[in-house]
């Protein structure tokens, strides 16, 4: 059997040789400002943006800091100038129904011009209309109409008066009207004189008076009719005059927008409304009511002209090509737009000028970038966005309206057609959740741009990294980096990737490191960032984040947490776990794992699982190792073992199977009654065939145990067993490498449990002969013998005549100390 030898120091750390670089500092390099190592995602973005079909919106998924936003926005800014610039949009008054303002589409850049022209129109009308209505021409015509009315009345009365006078009857005025009185000598006849007249004469006078009264009555009845006629004529005149004042001004605007039917029909409505309401331009009097509540007449005046205003919601006058909009706060209102209100005399009022655009308006005809998590945490925003994409229009609706929570009169602006490509940026899990639970999402976001966490580490990529560092340094206005510093950063990148053959694509961590290194270079007065500065930045990062790590180590050194780093114990081993405290702050921590065995029914009890402190993967690891144990050592006889496994002094949960090999070693040690060297620590999972498999966080785990050993003093015996498959991931700290080189610390790569147990116990594992028997003194032989002894004992108990007595005996045995051979 091959026995594991310590790894040579050169396998522990894959250096990046600065000599490979053709430059001294990054100042000599061509800048690279694009994303590297994300070919798959970039291809997806190109496809997703290029394809012009419904629902082909993008979701860029990947961890934060991998450059999703940079990649997407860079690509969009590259292509957008070559796309057509979208139209401008305005909201204008709906003269038929002011609560439903119309949307008006205008050529890019003309909306503000149109708005200003309408404003000037109103200003111009405020002087031209009063001028027209105070003109001699108007006054004369108006007076003529009024005089015609008076003339008609006078004529009718005059004729009647004349007829009356012919019969010696006068038309005289009474306080409330008119009356006819018979005359005598030019005066109204005195009553006694009238009575003195002959009765026939009296009767004839009375009849005449009655006839005249009736005639007068008919005239009186005509008066309101004449009045209406006069009023109609004046209205007609007013309209004629107003049209005369308005038409030339509007014609000028019409001419400019001749090819836009929307504008033309709007201008027709404006003209009709202006003619109808020309009076508003004449009214200069103070409104006493308004003054009383503190409004100036200017306010009121302004208010009545707002309906001719143009509310520009999309102004592309300074946009060239398609707009690229990033909405940092994608709330419902920020996306869809909103209708604001103003408070006046305690009432909330609104009109079309208070319609405010959302990000969708601004991005219409172009691209909208939104962070998925922000979108999902804003109430109703995701639903609102989906609705807009599905209906392909932006309908501004307040949430209150949408959910019928308020019933006050609001605005219902006409929806604007929407054509936009939305790019969501977000974590992977959100993408998978959305695809699993939201059928709409799959339809609307058909393209996924998947950003990877790491890229291949090779010469070309190292150079690309160097150029990227150059680009970042330039963008962030940092010092340039010496090639040794670049090499160190690349090495650190591999460490972040947790793989000597890979580099991380988490550019945020790298750019943070660059900034920090630049800071330390500044502190040291360096002109370029050197290797020392990068190292200092890394050390500072570790130190700043080191409080808990140090506390744990201290607890171990003070023996609050019991971890042996020398000597040997049966059924006890040092396992290694990784604690992760936020991004880029994880460290290894040794844990004591113990195993005890006794006669039983063939079960390995995972105490963590019994108390529900172990995760499913951990439980799975324990079941695998017990399967291995049973199949290898008790394939053809009863597996009369009861074993318990526990992580000592673990007060929180345990998850992962990286300790399953350690657990198995502890169990084998307990069964074989062979002590395990406490100077070694173990990591690696195990399969049913006894092969040791790769685990994560190998660097942190090794360093965790190394730190403890160094603190107690390196003995030269100490070391860590790692799976062979993890060797390629090794990117260990400088001090670990030095200790290994000096022979003070060892790292063993093991392939199988047999290799491992031999190292740990110093006893050969033993190979089975053809009959399946192991050498008696080997570990395997001792385990076999122990298990055989258990099964014999069990058989002895089973032979007992009474079932009950047997049971009792077994349970009595259970209370004993672990059975030792």
């Amino acid at each position: 059997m091959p026995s594991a030898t310590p790894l040579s120091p050169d396998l522990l750390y894959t250096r990046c040789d600065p000599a490979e670089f053709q430059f001294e500092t990054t100042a000599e390099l061509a800048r690279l400002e694009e994303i590297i190592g994300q070919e798959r995602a970039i291809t997806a973005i190109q496809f997703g943006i290029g394809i012009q079909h419904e629902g082909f919106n993008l979701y860029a998924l990947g961890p934060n800091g991998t450059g999703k936003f940079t990649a997407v926005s860079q690509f969009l800014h590259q292509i957008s100038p070559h796309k057509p610039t979208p139209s401008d949009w305005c909201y204008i008054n709906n003269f038929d129904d002011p609560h439903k303002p119309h949307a008006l589409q205008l050529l890019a850049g003309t909306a503000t011009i149109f708005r200003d022209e309408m404003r000037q129109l109103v200003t111009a009308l405020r002087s031209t209309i009063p001028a027209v209505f105070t003109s001699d021409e108007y006054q004369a015509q108006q007076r003529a109409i009024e005089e015609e009315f008076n003339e008609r009345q006078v004529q009718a009365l005059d004729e009647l008066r004349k007829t009356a006078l012919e019969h010696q009857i006068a038309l005289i005025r009474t306080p409330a009207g008119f009356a006819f009185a018979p005359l005598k000598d030019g005066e109204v006849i005195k009553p006694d004189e009238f009575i003195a007249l002959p009765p026939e004469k009296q009767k004839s006078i009375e009849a005449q008076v009655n006839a005249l009264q009736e005639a007068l009555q008919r005239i009186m009845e005509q008066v309101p009719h004449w009045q209406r006629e006069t009023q109609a004529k004046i209205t007609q005149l007013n309209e004629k005059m107003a049209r005369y004042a308005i038409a030339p001004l509007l014609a000028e605007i019409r001419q400019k927008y001749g090819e836009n039917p929307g504008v033309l029909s709007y201008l027709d409505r404006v003209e009709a409304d202006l003619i109808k309401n020309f009076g508003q331009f004449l009214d200069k009097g103070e409104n006493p009511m308004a003054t009383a509540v503190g409004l100036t007449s200017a306010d009121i005046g302004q208010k009545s002209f707002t309906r001719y205003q143009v509310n520009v919601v999309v102004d592309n006058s300074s946009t060239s090509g398609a707009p690229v909009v990033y909405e940092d706060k994608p709330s419902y209102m920020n996306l869809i737009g909103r209708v604001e209100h103003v408070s006046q005399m305690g009432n909330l009022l609104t009109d079309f000028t208070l319609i405010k655009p959302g990000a969708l308006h601004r991005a219409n005809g172009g691209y909208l970038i939104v962070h998925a998590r922000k979108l999902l945490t804003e109430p109703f925003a995701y639903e609102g966005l989906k609705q807009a994409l599905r209906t392909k229009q932006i309908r501004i609706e307040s949430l209150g309206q949408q959910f019928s929570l308020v019933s006050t009169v609001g605005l219902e602006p006409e929806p604007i057609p929407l054509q936009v490509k939305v790019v969501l940026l977000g974590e992977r899990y959100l993408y998978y959740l959305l695809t699993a639970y939201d059928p709409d999402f799959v339809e609307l976001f058909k393209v996924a741009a998947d950003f990877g966490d790491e890229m291949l580490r090779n010469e070309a990529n190292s150079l690309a990294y160097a150029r990227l560092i150059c680009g970042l340094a330039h963008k962030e206005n940092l010092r340039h980096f010496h090639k040794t510093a670049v090499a160190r950063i690349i090495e650190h990148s591999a460490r972040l990737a947790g793989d000597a053959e890979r580099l991380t694509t988490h550019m945020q961590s790298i750019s943070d490191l660059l900034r920090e290194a630049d800071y330390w270079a500044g502190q040291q007065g360096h002109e370029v960032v050197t290797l020392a500065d990068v190292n200092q930045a890394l050390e500072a990062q570790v130190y700043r984040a080191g409080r808990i790590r140090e506390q744990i180590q201290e607890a171990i050194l003070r023996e609050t947490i019991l971890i042996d780093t020398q000597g040997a114990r049966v059924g006890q081993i040092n396992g290694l776990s990784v604690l992760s405290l936020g991004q880029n702050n994880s460290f290894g921590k040794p844990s004591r794992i113990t195993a005890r065995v006794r006669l039983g029914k063939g079960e390995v009890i995972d105490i963590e699982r019994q108390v529900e402190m172990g995760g499913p993967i951990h439980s799975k690891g324990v079941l695998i190792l017990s399967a291995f144990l049973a199949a290898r050592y008790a394939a053809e006889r009863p597996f009369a073992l009861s074993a318990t496994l526990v992580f000592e002094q673990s007060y929180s949960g345990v998850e992962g199977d990286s300790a399953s090999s350690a657990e198995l070693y502890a169990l084998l040690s307990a069964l074989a009654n062979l002590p395990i060297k406490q100077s070694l620590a173990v990591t690696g999972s195990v399969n049913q065939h006894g092969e040791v498999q790769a685990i994560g966080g190998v660097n942190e785990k090794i360093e965790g145990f190394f730190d403890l050993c160094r603190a107690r003093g390196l003995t030269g015996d100490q070391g860590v067993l790692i799976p062979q498959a993890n060797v390629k991931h090794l990117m260990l700290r400088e001090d670990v490498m030095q200790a290994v080189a000096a022979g003070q610390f060892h790292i063993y790569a093991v392939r199988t449990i047999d290799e491992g147990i031999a190292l740990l116990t110093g006893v050969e594992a033993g190979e089975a002969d053809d009959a399946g028997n192991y050498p008696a003194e080997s570990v395997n032989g001792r385990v076999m013998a122990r298990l055989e002894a258990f099964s014999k004992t069990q058989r002895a108990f089973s032979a007992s005549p009474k079932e009950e007595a047997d049971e009792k005996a077994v349970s009595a045995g259970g209370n004993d100390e672990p059975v030792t051979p």
Partner: protein
Amino acid sequence: MNQSPHKLLIRRILVALDGSPHSQAALEAAAHLAELLRAELMGVFVEDVNLLRLAELPFAQEVRRHTATIEKLEVRYLHRQLQRQAEQAQADLKRVANAHALSATFRVARGPVSAEVLAAALEADLLALGRISHAGPPRLGSTAKTAVAQTSRPVLLMRPGLPFAQPILLVYDGSPGAERALEVAAYLAGENGRLQVLLWAENAQQALAQEEAIRQSQQPKGLNLQFRRLTQPDVANFAYLVRLSGTGLMVLSDTNTRLPTAVVHTLLEELDHPILLVR
């Protein structure tokens, strides 16, 4: 401003009140003038004797103005109406006089309206009245006609709806009467006021001479003068000119004038203008 011009010595202004909008306008204008001239106001309300006689006739009826219905005219009802009108007239006078800080007297007369007004006017230096009484034809009413014809005092004929302080119109023909009217009009326009002069002349040369004369006499007062004249002076053209000149108070004289009677008649009777007739 506080000195009355010697040619318009006015101490008392009589206002004929009948509750109509025209008489209301006359009251306002009279008060304005009274304040300017430091004169006092005299109000008179005449109970029309013809009306009272009519009411006593057995078949007396009236046609109501607004409803066009025919109603019996009863003596008691009429008395009550007249009394109420008189009270209203007195109240109006008091209100306006107070507003202008003037002293005012009021009395009620009974008899033929024109005669009573003329009789009352004997005690006053200027007679102010509405062009017509209750909403009738725009022509000059009978009382106003009588007043113009039968009194030698200046007469102020008002119509409602036009503020007194508009640019003053002066009809000028170069006669002594017109000179007097010019004095009055200039005084009413006040310092830096606007005065529109309508020139009545035989020919252009004469008109220019008149214009020059007025400029020379009035320019030093700082008046803003505007002249309008006709090349072909006749009644219809002149009436048109007046219509064009706005609606301010028109000042003219009908005594010692060169204006043809037809022109004076048209100005007084046909045009619905507030007029101050200077005598």
